[in-house]
């Protein structure tokens, strides 16, 4: 019990005084996950929207594949990215293993299906609502997509936030491909795992506070967004 209290109070001080290690790790976590988020969103938001309004032959298959990719275990993603980037792997010459870039690649693979799937669902519902009107008004395909993106922007933001939440809290894949190297690839989740193992609860808990605060913020925003949606505000 005493350990925990001591840990909690020193963790509190680490956060309040702005411990340099803690700040460095937090910033790297944000940098990796935000970069992954931007790349994944750039792929997933247009793709999910396109999937929602386009009728084509293998649409159902594509959706099924997308939904099962969403359930990919991060550890396995980490393993695959590791094999691809390792010295003997096909992309070994790039020397990306154990760099933040490798971690970004892994996170992009993990969150792109999630963002695309949420986008697809939201846009499919919106398209069902708008379909007849937009066809009746003789809109161009570009105009339809613009209208959907503009009126569905909250759903798109929700999808992106869900992806960010998953990326920032993920540990399995980035541990494997990043290696948790001090001052290089150490992020919130991997260092919590490490410090806990070492028994340094102060730093682990301090990092945990930051992580929880980030996750809570993301969820509060998602909640607020879905509430304004239901109330018909925007």
């Amino acid at each position, binding site marked *: 019990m005493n350990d925990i209290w001591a840990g909690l109070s020193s963790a509190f001080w680490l956060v309040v005084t702005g411990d340099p290690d803690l700040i460095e790790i937090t910033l790297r976590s944000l940098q990796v996950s935000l970069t992954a988020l931007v790349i994944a969103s750039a792929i997933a938001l247009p793709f999910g929207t396109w999937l929602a309004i386009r009728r084509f032959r293998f649409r159902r298959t594509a959706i099924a594949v997308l939904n099962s990719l969403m359930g990919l275990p991060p550890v396995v993603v980490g393993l695959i990215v590791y094999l691809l980037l390792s010295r003997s792997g096909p992309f070994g010459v790039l020397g990306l293993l154990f760099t933040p870039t490798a971690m970004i690649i892994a996170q992009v693979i993990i969150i792109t299906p999630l963002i695309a799937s949420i986008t697809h669902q939201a846009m499919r519902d*919106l398209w069902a*609502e*708008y379909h*007849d*009107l937009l*066809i*009746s*008004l*003789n*809109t161009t395909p570009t*105009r339809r997509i613009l*209208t959907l993106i503009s*009126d*569905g922007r909250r759903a798109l933001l929700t999808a992106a936030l869900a992806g960010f939440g998953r990326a920032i809290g993920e540990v399995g894949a980035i541990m494997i491909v990043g290696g948790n190297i001090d001052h290089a690839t150490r992020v919130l989740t991997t260092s919590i795992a490490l410090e806990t193992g070492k028994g340094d609860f102060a730093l682990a808990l301090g990092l945990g506070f930051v992580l929880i605060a980030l996750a809570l913020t993301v969820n509060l925003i998602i909640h607020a967004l879905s509430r304004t949606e239901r109330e*018909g*505000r*925007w």
Partner: protein
Amino acid sequence: MVTPLMPAHMRDVTVTRQGKQVLGPVDLTLGQSGFTILLGPNGAGKTTFLKALHGLERLSTGSVTWSAPDDVARMKQAYVFQSPVMLRRSVRANLGYPLAILGQPKAQVNDAVEAWATRIGLTAALDRPATGLSGGEKQKLALARALIRDPEILLLDEPCSNLDGRSVKDIEALLTAAHQAGTRIVMATHDLGQARRLATEILFLFKGHIHEAGPAPDAFDAPQTPEFKSFLNGDILI
């Protein structure tokens, strides 16, 4: 003024849904002017008929041809859906949408929006979200949004189903004005009184078939088919 898009011909039009023929075969010519009222019980195929005419329904057989190329004809038509489609935007943006997407200047769009808002009594609601309007207000908004492009052909699917007497009167005045200005109107309704007030031509649909088609007062005074006769009497049709 009569529209050069008409007459329109429906030739051997049938629509099939899940193996069931829900409309047709319909062979019909819609003349250049007039206010056509489409009558029929629930499930008769009124909505399917209007959507087929407008090109929103996949036809199993037959064709709909206008006296102009399809894309020209489509631009001059407006359709009011049975359940109004509200864009998740303000009332103002909903009203202005058909003009805004044509690239009209903002000021011009806004003038048209304010004029129509006054006509349908939604001026105070202009900057509220359209999804929060009442059912009747949504119907009025949908109608104004259809009229804002000055369509030559107006297709309406029960536009007054949720309105009270006062609002029905307002809407009928708008429709009559549009009709007198030369807009060709085809409208589905359940309301026989409304049909008598507005129609210059009657189409009676029952089980996907047109059972009665003719000029308005005559069709009411001397119905040609037993089905329409019982419908006018308020009998339950099976």
